[in-house]
């Protein structure tokens, strides 16, 4: 069946509108991030919970209800809320773009790097919005939107290709299994990456504050520990998905090339990424590796993921180079 040019055009336009929405939302989140805490700079002191020193916590600490901790609002809070609304709008447009691309080409909308980038970003935004329905994580907005806008911008310019059918090597039902899992995990890891970055920033801010004032003050920004928990949850969720994706890839490789593992550059980097994230999960529960070190490992995992996805396709030739640009 020929490519539906009208739908392809519609998909391109929707993606353009999506990027604009995300960019505006990013600015909104950044504004809230920068100015949101001015209103409560003289916040109350946080109960101190240093790592390991559990017995320093009053054993009968009253449960902290969410309403009691709600921080005062200022104009920036409104901007942050508007940014969420714009993100949701962008997300709807983004969904439309991916679906119309698939309809235009009469196949799954992830057959080349351009489409693949778009879907990964869609997963990342979905994961962020899903998280937002469960926890107040708006503070992550700017850090999630930045790589998403960058990724979509790169996709729309450097990686852009016309819609067409799949190359024979990809024309298998495994593209629905292997590629979906890998893209899903990548999007989730992107959110974890944002959380790890914020953790590093919050952790040093809290440490500085502790050194200066002897007490960490409450701010509208989350505590380092809670950002760390978000990063951990995302990685703990993404890791089995990534593992499944790699295993499914091995099964596909066995069917297509006669060996389930051949140390092709793509496989090698998928393995490296897996090892680094496995290292993160272990580090987070090993004395002496928690906190900053674990966060650095999480960030290294995402860098390795980027290499797996971009660098291997663009600069290293291997069996996966059929996916082209």
């Amino acid at each position, binding site marked *: 069946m020929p490519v539906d040019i009208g739908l392809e055009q519609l998909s391109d336009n929707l993606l353009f509108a999506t990027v604009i929405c995300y960019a505006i939302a990013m600015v909104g989140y950044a504004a809230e991030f920068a100015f949101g805490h001015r209103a409560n700079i003289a916040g109350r002191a946080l*109960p101190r*919970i240093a790592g390991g020193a*559990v*017995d320093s*916590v009053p*054993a*009968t*600490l*009253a*449960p902290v209800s969410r309403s009691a901790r709600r921080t005062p609002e200022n104009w920036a809070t409104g901007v942050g809320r508007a940014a969420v609304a714009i993100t949701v709008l962008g997300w709807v447009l983004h969904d439309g773009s991916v679906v119309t691309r698939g309809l235009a080409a009469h196949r799954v909308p992830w057959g080349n790097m351009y489409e693949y980038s778009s879907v990964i970003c869609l997963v990342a935004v979905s994961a962020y919005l899903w998280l937002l329905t469960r926890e107040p994580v708006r503070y992550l907005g700017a850090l999630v939107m930045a790589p998403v806008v960058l990724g979509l911008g790169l996709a729309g310019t450097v990686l852009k290709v016309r819609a*067409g*059918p799949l*190359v*024979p*090597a990809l*024309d*298998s039902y495994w593209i629905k299994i292997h590629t979906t899992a890998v893209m899903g995990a990548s999007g989730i890891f992107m959110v974890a990456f944002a959380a790890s970055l914020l953790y590093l920033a919050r952790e040093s801010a809290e440490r500085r504050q502790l050194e200066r004032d002897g007490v960490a003050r409450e701010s509208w920004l989350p*505590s380092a*520990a*809670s950002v760390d*928990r978000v990063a951990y949850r995302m990685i*703990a969720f993404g*890791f*089995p998905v990534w*593992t*499944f994706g790699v*295993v499914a890839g*091995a*099964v*596909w490789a*066995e*069917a*297509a*090339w*006669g*060996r*389930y*593992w*051949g*140390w092709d550059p793509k496989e*090698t*980097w998928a*393995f*490296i990424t897996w*090892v*680094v994230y*496995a*290292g993160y*999960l*272990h*580090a987070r*529960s*090993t*004395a*002496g*590796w928690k906190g900053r070190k674990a966060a650095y490992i999480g960030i290294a995992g995402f860098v*390795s993921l980027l290499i797996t996805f971009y660098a291997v396709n663009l600069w*290293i030739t*291997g*069996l996966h180079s059929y996916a082209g640009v």
Partner: protein
Amino acid sequence: MSELTAKDDMATATESLSTAESVSGDVDEVVVDRPRKPGLPALLLQGWRQLTTMRTALLLLFLLALAAIPGSLFPQRGTNSARVNQYYDDHAAVAPWLDRLGMFDVFGSTWFYTLYALLGVSLVGCLVPRLRLHARASVARPPAPPRRFDRLPLSTTFRTTSSADDVASAAHGLLRGKQWRSDRRTAPDGVLSVAAEKGYLRETGNLLFHVSLLVLLAAVAVGALLGYSGIFSVVEGGRPFTNTVAAYDGEPTFGQWVDGSTLKPFTLKLDDFRAVYLPNTQPKSFDADVTWAPGAGAPERRRGIRVNHPLAVGGAKVYLLGSGFAPRFVVRDKTGRVVSDDFVRLLPQKNANQYSIGVLKVPGGLPYDVGMRAVFVPTFAMGADGFPYSSSPEAKAPVILYRVFTGDLGLTRAQSVFDFDERGMTVAGEGVLVPGKSVSLPDGASIAWEDTREYAVFQTTRNPGTRTAFVACVLGLLGLIASLFVRRRRIWVSATAASGGTVVEVGGLARHDAERFSAEFAAIAGELSGRLAPPAPAPAPAPAPAQQPTAAEPSAGES
């Protein structure tokens, strides 16, 4: 680990902390205190302990990741030996040094295997004691309650007019009903208590994952030792392939424990090959129709082999790898006698629309050897740069550009089928050939291009251990999911008789997802107090309601 808690007299704050450590399970390396022995054994023991710590395992894991990087940056012999040779040509100075370091065979190099083996040993060292501990914990009673519940991350106290015995029975029944492993105890001082634990599956999953990983490593090793793989090609309607070492293009690669005698007998003929391309020259589909038989004399079967659809032959699989064009050249001497008549496979160049190169070698039948270099252009077009190219991968306007040599091919030296050695040869002519036309040699001999067919390239692969590896992956994945999402937690209930009823204390401990546990804890404590008789209207201030358990900041725990 739980022995500590069993000693009631030691139930102190530090003790409840150690309970917190031990319940986490997957956290710290298990340190089993053994008496120290002097001398070499002690040193070995020390080394063994060092190797099996989590920190060493982590370090090895990262070293393995680092070690894999050069394998993706340098060409590897296993996947692309031609590019290794190319690298040697391009970087003559550094290539031998890189080779010495194993950079062209990273995944088969000693140092990679060393890391791999160390990690395996470290894993075994971590696993054995933990398997033992988990097996013991799986049949043991849940650990006894700590002396002071208020030291636990979650605790609550209330009064009831029910007897202590009823409280213990109610708590025991309630927790059992919720699938907790529950245990009733009576302390020496007569205090009744219930200890319950849930989420053993976390450690079970964790161990299953790591054991599966070891099985996977073993399966990969078996595949490397007992497997083989080789590439062969067959021309449409041409000579059938028989599965022998000599019939392969180049020597097949065999694992260290197998050789040519392990090849399963089979024959394969290519009846038809169809490559379909889109107007923009992107390939759409490749289909090879073959007739094959499992051994000489066995009944023949017909089948299609496509990309992603291999043919299974007695433990081995035959995959379609690629295709190319094979022109038929008929060589005649000056009297017109046919000297040679064969299809010559040409090698398609990358991203060039099947623009292919190859050679025809005629080593006998004429007074001299003939060698002809041929460039096959399926759809001839002239580029703006003055060089011919192919504008389509289909043979719409095929042309052969040739340069023919005569002299001595020197076939005593090992040579590629796609090349020959020009040193003993002289150029006897060059030009352009269209189908049906001939090249004339100076003495009147001729080379006629009579026909063009396609050939298909197949790969035979046998990789034992694949099924084991797959099962290990599936089990490992299940174990991984359990180890990440099952929460291990403990609840203790103690009932102390007091004037006018019983004082009930409930305590809880969880290292993972403390927030979720505090909700669960509150629900269980609430349900328990609901099942008991309400407290007598006492002059004392009302006890803390069970629905509001005291809670440490959830972030203190592991999520």
